[in-house]
């Protein structure tokens, strides 16, 4: 689906002295959900921006659907890949429906189909009741849900043209407890529609519940990859985050549960 080959990146003039990402090799399988995790400054958001094409790596390349990311035409890429950034800047008085409809702009699917998809996406993120509200008047968590609906609408394809990728940078940062739980069903639903999900999340327990794979980054290198069971061990967490934890098996789900 999407693959990082020997990716290196640094912000400084002398690139080798201030390395943010050092020779990253990663392959994300189509139809899977993956969480990028790690301490602050590990390079998660930078790697996410390189995957989305927002930043250009100093070394290495990104292969998206068997084609170098740079060789994709902007509009065709936008039909296959949607990106949710951490911050949003919209200050103009669009309604929620209009914001989500913007997600359909790469497609030429027609107004009626778009309206259906927008309604579906809004209901999926529990924002159907916000449809006619003005976006700037919403709370932080509501805005985040609306933007999530926008990128869902963008990859919600009507005619299957190929595998699609959804990149999310901390989608649940401003969510309350109930909506964090909702993120779980949203990710499951979108993966069941053959959309691959790649996201940054901070909450280890949340990640254990919602994704198939975890990639643990530390100081610009990949420390561990695998299922939550494989990655979220007391030893690995201690090594990467430098804190002592206890990892239990959740009595009902069997998923790893981290206690600090």
């Amino acid at each position: 689906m999407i693959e990082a080959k020997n990716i290196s990146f640094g912000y400084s003039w002398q690139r080798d002295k201030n390395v943010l990402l050092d020779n990253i090799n990663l392959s994300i399988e189509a139809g899977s959900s993956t969480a990028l995790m790690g301490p602050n400054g590990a390079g998660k958001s930078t790697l996410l921006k390189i995957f989305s094409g927002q930043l250009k790596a100093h070394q290495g390349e990104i292969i998206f659907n068997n084609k170098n990311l740079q060789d994709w035409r902007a509009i065709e890429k936008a039909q296959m890949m949607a990106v949710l950034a951490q911050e949003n800047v919209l200050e103009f008085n669009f309604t929620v429906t209009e914001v989500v409809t913007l997600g359909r702009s790469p497609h030429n699917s027609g107004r009626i189909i778009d309206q259906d998809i927008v309604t579906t996406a809004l209901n999926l993120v529990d924002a159907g009741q916000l449809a006619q509200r003005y976006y700037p008047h919403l709370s932080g968590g509501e805005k985040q849900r609306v933007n999530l609906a926008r990128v869902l609408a963008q990859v919600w394809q009507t005619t299957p043209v190929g595998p699609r990728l959804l990149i999310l940078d901390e989608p649940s940062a401003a969510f309350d407890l109930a909506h964090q739980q909702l993120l779980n069903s949203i990710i499951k639903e979108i993966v069941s529609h053959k959309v691959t999900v790649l996201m940054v999340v901070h909450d280890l327990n949340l990640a254990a519940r919602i994704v198939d794979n975890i990639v643990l980054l530390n100081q610009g290198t990949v420390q561990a990859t695998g299922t939550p069971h494989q990655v979220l061990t007391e030893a690995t967490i201690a090594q990467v985050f430098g804190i002592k934890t206890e990892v239990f098996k959740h009595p009902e789900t069997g998923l790893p549960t981290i206690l600090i």
Partner: protein
Amino acid sequence: MRILKPHQLMTILLFLLPATMIFGMISGPLIIPAVEVINIMLHFGSNNSDQNNFNQNVLIVESIRLPRVCLAALIGMLLASCGAVLQGLFRNPLADPTLIGVSAGASAGASLAIVFGSSQVLGEFSLTSQFLSNTLPVTAFGAFIGGLITSILVYKLATNSQGTSVATMLLAGIAISALAGAINSLLNFFADNEMLRRLSLWRMGNLDNATWERVMLCFFAVLLLILLLPKEGRALNAILLGESEARHLGFDVEKMKRRLIILTALGVGVAIAMAGTIAFLGIVIPHLIRLLIGPDHRYLLPASAIGGAILLVLADTLARILIPPAEIPAGIITAVLGAPFFIWLLLQQRQQL
């Protein structure tokens, strides 16, 4: 909050525009009845063909008031639609042509043209400059070039391989404005009495001595905007989400910014060249339209154009009838009406933050 549907507003505006233009042709030191104005308009060009039956009102309408309301309407269109585009591009409802330095650059260009293009300076070339100032005024050309150079300069300063930084662009605009202001002051210092008078009159923003040449020049600029802007509506909507977001939605943001900046520099440059600095039109009109129908640029751009035309025709008419037979420059009217509105907008923004 949204009071009207876009097509309702467009219908209203498209009725209002000819109405205000006819009102503008009726009004003035000599009031010409509406019926006569419409009658003259219907027989445009053939009214005074009969030499024995010369009609003064025909001359006033055909040669003075009609080109003047046309010029006002076209300049209103240019300023309001360029304002709307810049506010979208900067993602800030307070952005204005004056912010990126186009107005100041155009003003400096015009001042240079007035001072150095005048017969006293040019000496033996006086005949050429006389000819130029009669057909396509040197002032106008200088303003246009000045505006264009400024916006290209500001754009180059603010753009690097990573994209255009709005903050750098605004600051560059301020710096260029200061430089242009210094050029203006220097020229004021050296200019003789006659030049000074022309400089200050032009800067006030005025629509008198409207000629068909000026109308045609503005018309071509408006035509260019009408042909090219509608394509950018969706991209402008997307860019309100942020530049990266617009890129992720498949828009070529860099190319689009380049196109829009050149287009607005041209529009604003031509408008300022023809009528001097007419302030606040580019902020007031798009803001009112957004209040009525929302910020969707597909409707905002055409509605702003028509709204700007209506407002400037009204302001110019007001300028002509307030203290007849004297004419207040229309730029003063728009500034007097626009400045309090702008301050009100600022207060609104402050409350939101």
